[in-house]
């Protein structure tokens, strides 16, 4: 690169702190640009200390946390969240059984529940394991999918029981649930998880709760005919997620580095 190079003697002097500042600065600026001199200076550092540090770094990177461990540290699995899910499902169930004439409340609430779980489950602000996650050499997509799976595993069965009890077709809320979660995951490649889930929830409110509030008998998002639409949205979102999964690493870094 240039004819100015660092000899072993200068590197030794630098390592021992015997170079004065201007000379050290020249060396430092040069080492950034010249890999040959970087090697010369690196070999002047204490090799024993470097070997020990390398071992420590390897240890920090080695505990490849397996998927199921993420399940156990997901906030969505805390007793508080379980209790909240049970409470909401029971409340909705009671209201639907009392009043079977209007649109089942279950249909309106069910798709929001997994979404909320996802927001809580993946938000660094709530998640005490965010620090651990940030230093895990696991693809961000994998972590996110495990957590989404954890949320679904917890949220879906109670909802399924409730829909059996009220005789509401399960596919009518399962399809939008899947679509909204997939959409939120796809959006998470661009936005923070909180914002992505918020956007998906807003979409749901726009197509269902809004019209429902003005007493339209059957909001567009809830009609049986809407199911294929939701399935298409699910598929498109999943494809988008697969294509943009490398962008998730930014999310990975953002949640981890925010200390």
């Amino acid at each position, binding site marked *: 690169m240039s004819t100015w190079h660092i000899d072993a*003697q*200068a590197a030794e*002097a*630098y*390592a021992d*702190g*015997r*170079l*004065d*500042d*201007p*000379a*050290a*600065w*020249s060396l*430092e*600026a040069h*080492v*950034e*640009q*010249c*890999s040959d001199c*970087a*090697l010369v*200076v*690196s*070999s*002047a*550092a204490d090799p024993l*200390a*470097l070997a020990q*540090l*390398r071992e*420590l*770094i390897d240890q*920090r*990177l080695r505990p490849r946390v397996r998927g199921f461990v993420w399940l156990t540290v997901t906030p969505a699995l805390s007793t508080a969240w379980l209790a909240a899910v049970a409470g909401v499902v029971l409340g909705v169930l009671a209201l639907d059984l009392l009043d079977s004439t209007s649109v089942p409340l279950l249909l309106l609430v069910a798709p929001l529940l997994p979404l909320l779980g996802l927001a809580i489950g993946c938000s660094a602000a709530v998640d005490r394991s965010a620090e651990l996650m*940030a*230093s895990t*050499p696991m693809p961000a997509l994998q972590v996110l999918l495990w957590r989404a799976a954890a949320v679904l595993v917890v949220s879906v069965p109670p909802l399924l029981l409730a829909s059996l009890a009220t005789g509401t077709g399960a596919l009518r809320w399962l399809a939008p649930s899947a679509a909204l979660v997939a959409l939120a995951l796809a959006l998470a490649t661009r936005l923070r998880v909180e914002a992505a889930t918020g956007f998906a929830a807003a979409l749901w409110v726009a197509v269902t709760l809004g019209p429902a509030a003005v007493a339209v008998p059957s909001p567009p998002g809830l009609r049986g005919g809407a199911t294929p639409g939701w399935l298409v949205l699910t598929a498109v979102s999943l494809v988008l997620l697969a294509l943009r999964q*490398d962008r998730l*690493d930014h999310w*990975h*870094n953002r949640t*981890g580095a925010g*200390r």
Partner: protein
Amino acid sequence: MDNVSDDELLALIARANTAAFHELYDRHAGWLLLRLKRRCADPGLAEEVLQDTFVSVWRSAGTFTAGSAGGWLWTLASRRLVDALRRADRAPRKASEPVETAVPGPHDELCDLTYGDLGTALSQLSPELRQVLQATVLDGLSTREAAVVLGIPQGTVKTRAARARAELRAGLA
């Protein structure tokens, strides 16, 4: 791995190649550690920061775009240094300490690298002014980050930087 360039190593690390990671470490950890040790009074902290740096390298090698790998590594290291000092700042810390250790010893014969008038002018700056130049110019830190690293208020960083520039200008005239 010997003939692989740093850029190629980083591309391999982005795909979770541990051999490439170790090779990059062996090439660069030494100078990074020496440079970090010159920046903080506590050698233990410098070693911690080196670990943090390479953990970051493993995680974010994918964000490296073409350019100087050495420069990129130092940027990561200096950010981790600022993080570490911010954390340490919450614990009580003697702000005067790094200033004291930076007092230069007698110049020895190894320093006869020719750097001309600028070198002389730089040498005549007080250690406090040189520290500020080092942090803001050479290490590319912002005023706020330099304040954290040097353990002095931001306002002091600004006034010292201005004074250092003025003295350099006078020294070169």
